[in-house]
């Protein structure tokens, strides 16, 4: 991943992370704050309910005591004490008394608890209210919750009982008010909160028994589990109900169990506080965070892009410059005018390339001088060898004419043969130099390297087995899966021939010649190994220098030609050798030589060292 991309990604990431952290932090803080407020509101309502409950209870107790203490009730009690009395005469009293005292429920019961008059269910006249008979100090108990039977089913009442003892038998007055949604209306609820009342009158949860001030509660069944929990273990519970998928409709309920005299659950007060505002605020915060994050991200991207461009453009210029230098353009320059580190780096680079160009120039010149010297020396050496016998022969001929005229003819014939041979020798030397100068550019076409290798060995086969010649065995390790490459078969044939000749020369006493081909890096590798004397390190380094030879005879152009052919094919040639253990030449050829079109320039460039010679030959 490039430096620019790294910068491009990292910067927005940092911005987004920062915004996210702030958003979450604010949300959590807000939620806690809201929950604290909710809790305080709930407590307020619960205590308000309990206060209301107590007040109502006291009023009921007072009312019941008034009824029980009234003259009419006393008369009833006295009358009921008389023998053979008919209590049905009082059957309707409860209704009128209850309406006078604004009670929802009122019952008079005799000493055995049997109902004398019932307001809420007149038809139960004569049936027993056993709970009235329990050993309790009713006046001390005050008002309490009680399940009250009515024709329309049981209802929940806040009941008080007063006992009027007359001549040893009691007249019970039990009266109270209905505990239903109307009771809730006495509670003042802050916005967003509501109070529900569940009266636990049936065996199972019934949604009818759950009511709010304004009537029945929608989806009441969702609250059934909470009631079930209360039934199992009455106590204050707080739970959140998710009404819809939308969390904004969630409601937190605080349950207050309403217990009867014997601690049985008769009702549950639900104080619900809507999470709507909280959730909306949280959503506001979140969307704000997202907005800020988005903008920051966009800015970040722009900034990081700008910064990346700003920082990396000189760097990439440097890279380009470096690449030019690498490709041999020693005059490459980087145009950077900043004064920062990058500017300094660019300056240093330009300075470096400048120095490199100078040094190369110098090197080329020295090499050119050295080459000229070497060429002169070689030329002198090559030409001096035939010239000396010429000189001798010519001198012999002159002497023979002067001194040995008789034998002159014989000597003349012998001397001219020697002269012709030496001149032929000179011609050969000059031909070789001109050949090197006339190295053609390769013509590419598909080439099966193995086939070519076999051809070369076949060419040299007679020489390996010729009598009087050193005994050389050949081994071919050819990879049959070699790719077909684009190459100039003639040039390659010649180059490999040269190498094979070298190998033969390196093994005057015979040995083993091994040719090996293999697919390598998308191209072909060809190795030619001999078992000759091997070369030293210096010899290896100078090996491809033109006109360098380790042999007594030879121009030292063979390997130079091989190297030029290989480099013309965009390939590489290397040599590995240990003195005494033979030498291995390795040629790596691409399947298709790079920039075939520019093969000229490549050829020219690669031949630059030999250029003066070519120019000279031309």
């Amino acid at each position, binding site marked *: 991943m490039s430096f620019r991309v790294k910068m491009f990604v990292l910067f927005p990431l940092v911005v987004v992370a920062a915004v996210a952290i702030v958003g979450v932090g604010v949300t959590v803080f807000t939620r806690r704050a809201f929950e604290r407020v909710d809790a305080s509101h709930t407590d307020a309502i619960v205590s308000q309910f309990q206060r209301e409950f107590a007040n109502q209870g006291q009023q009921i107790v007072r009312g019941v005591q008034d009824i029980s203490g009234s003259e009419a009730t006393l008369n009833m009690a006295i009358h009921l004490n008389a023998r053979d009395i*008919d209590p049905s*005469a009082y*059957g309707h009293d409860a209704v009128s008394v209850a309406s006078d005292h604004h009670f929802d429920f009122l019952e008079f019961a005799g000493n055995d608890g049997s109902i004398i008059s019932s307001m809420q269910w007149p*038809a139960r006249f004569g049936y027993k209210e056993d709970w009235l008979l329990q050993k309790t100090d009713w006046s001390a108990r005050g008002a309490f919750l009680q399940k009250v039977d009515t024709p329309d089913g049981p209802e929940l009442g806040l009941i008080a009982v007063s006992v009027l003892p007359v001549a040893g038998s009691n007249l019970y007055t039990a009266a109270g008010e209905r505990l239903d949604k109307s009771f809730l209306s006495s509670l003042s609820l802050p916005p967003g909160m509501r109070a529900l009342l569940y009266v636990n009158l049936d065996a199972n949860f019934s949604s009818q028994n759950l009511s709010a001030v304004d009537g029945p509660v929608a989806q009441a069944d969702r609250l059934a589990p909470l009631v079930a929990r209360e039934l199992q273990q009455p106590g204050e519970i707080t739970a959140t109900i998710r009404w819809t998928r939308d969390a904004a409709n969630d409601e937190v309920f605080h349950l207050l169990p309403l217990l009867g005299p014997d601690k049985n659950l008769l009702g549950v007060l639900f104080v619900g506080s809507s999470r709507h505002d909280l959730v909306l605020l949280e959503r506001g915060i979140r969307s704000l965070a997202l907005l800020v994050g988005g903008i920051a991200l966009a800015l970040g991207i722009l900034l990081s892009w700008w910064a990346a461009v700003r920082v990396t453009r000189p760097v990439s210029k440097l890279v380009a410059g470096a690449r030019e230098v690498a490709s041999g353009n020693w005059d490459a320059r980087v145009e950077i005018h900043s004064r920062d580190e990058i500017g300094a780096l660019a300056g240093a680079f330009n300075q470096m390339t400048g120095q490199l160009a100078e040094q190369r120039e110098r090197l080329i010149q020295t090499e050119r001088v050295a080459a000229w010297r070497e060429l002169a020396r070689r030329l002198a050496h090559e030409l001096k060898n035939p010239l000396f016998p010429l000189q001798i022969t010519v001198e012999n001929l002159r002497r023979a004419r002067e001194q040995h005229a008789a034998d002159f003819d014989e000597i003349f014939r012998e001397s001219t043969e020697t002269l012709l041979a030496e001149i032929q020798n000179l011609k050969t030397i000059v031909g070789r130099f001109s050949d090197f100068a006339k190295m053609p550019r390769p013509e590419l076409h598909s080439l099966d390297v193995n086939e070519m290798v076999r051809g070369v060995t076949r060419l040299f086969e007679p020489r390996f087995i010729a009598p009087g010649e050193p005994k050389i065995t050949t081994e071919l390790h050819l990879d049959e899966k070699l790719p077909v490459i684009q190459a100039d078969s003639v040039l390659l044939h010649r180059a490999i021939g040269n190498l094979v000749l070298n190998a033969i020369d390196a093994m005057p006493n015979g040995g083993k010649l091994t040719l090996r081909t293999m697919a390598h890096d998308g191209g072909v590798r060809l190795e030619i190994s001999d078992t000759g004397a091997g070369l030293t390190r210096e010899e290896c380094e100078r090996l491809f220098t033109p006109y360098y030879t380790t042999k007594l005879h030879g121009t030292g152009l063979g390997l130079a030609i091989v190297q030029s052919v290989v480099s013309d094919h965009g390939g590489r040639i290397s040599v590995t050798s240990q003195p005494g253990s033979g030498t291995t030449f390795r040629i790596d050829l691409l399947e298709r030589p790079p920039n075939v079109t520019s093969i000229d320039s490549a050829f020219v460039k690669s031949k630059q060292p030999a250029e003066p010679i070519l120019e000279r030959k031309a």
Partner: protein
Amino acid sequence: MRRISSARFTTNSLLFALLFVALPASAARRPRYGGTITIDLQARVTSLDPAQKQGSVADQIAQDRLLELVADRLVTLDRFGRPRPALAVSWQHDGKFTRWTFRLRPNIKFQDASPFTPDSVATSLQAMNPGWRVGVASDSVVVESDSPLPDLLCVLAETRNSILLRKPTDVIVGTGPFRLTTWEPGRHAVFAANDDYWDGRPFVDGIDVRMGRTIRERMIDLDLGKADIADVAPDRARIDASRGVKISTSDPTELLALVFARSSARAKEIRVRQALSLAIDRASLVDFALQREGAPAEALLPQWSSGYEFLFSTAPDVATARQLASQISPAHVLRLGYDADDPMERMIAERITVNAQAAGISIYARAISADSPGGTANRATNRAASVPEYDARIVRLPMSSPAPGVALGDFLQTVAQLADFDPSLTAPLNDPANSEQLYSRERAVVDTYEIIPLVHVPEVVGLSARVRDWIPAPWGKWHLADIWLDGASQ
């Protein structure tokens, strides 16, 4: 139980005796003529024509009471329910009771001075009894029927068999002690004494009847002397008496019974019906709903009429009821219907519900609005075909006649239209006067539990202080021609 009913009987007779004695005691002199009786009725009578059924049982009874003022029957019943001559002076019948001949009282005119002829009688009777063949023979009327009519005299004594002329203006003209002078259906009626009444002119000059009066209005009117006679709800009688109102209570004249609807699948199982019957505590119904003005109904006919009601023991047996109810699976929830406009029915229905629930029978009471099927007993008879919204309903069955045979026959006819009755139970009896036949028939009916007798309700009337010689028949028939007003208390 049986003690209560017989005690009921004696207390009633004692009450009559008391009225007998008490009133003259305060004004011990012979009757005086004059004055107008004001009657407050809760009922709203829409027509005096017996052919036109009234909306409710109370209206029906009120119609009878008013019709009795205007029209007479051929035969009337004395206070022991024995037939006595009225418009007919004598009668004969053949051995099979299929042909009756009535000799009409001579020199009688209708109130519009049109002559009282056998033809008019025949027309009048034929209109109300299409089953008969009513003919005329000189000064007699001949009633023939394919089926024997052993109880014909009692039947003819029913108000619906009043002899009257139907005028196109919906005005009823009869031969009775009073003639109708003003008629505002359902609201107001004024009757004037018929000076030419064959049985002697009534003591009072007229009767002013105000209908549709509420309990409150009736009581206030009685207290202030603005009304002389007002009907009183039985459960109010004791309260009103305690407020000094003179209360006259008849023998039970109405049966409140529970009738299971024919269409009810829930009540098909006899154990359901039997369990409910065993669960009901009738004595407490009387104590509570009727404030002891009435008697627990152990059978359809009250003891005073049949004489054998005590043989039907209906002591509540909650244990057995619970056992029966537990055998029924699944436990049916019965719908007990009652007339929404009738507080007494409502009270009784609620009490029955309590009794039943105590016996483990699931049942609930529901008001039947007037326009629902069988909204009232009469509608029940008219609309029996439509599917009712109840499994059992409380039905008020007024005794059409003190004669047990006739009353039972009419009960069964009414109930048969509601309940799932074997036709044999409604077939006429050979001898309706035979207690054994009546008993066996009634026993058979009661044992089907298709109808469960609840209470026998008396007719209770409040009287102002100036009403004298108030001697109604034990079964509630008023004799307004006999009463007179004490001027001293005016």
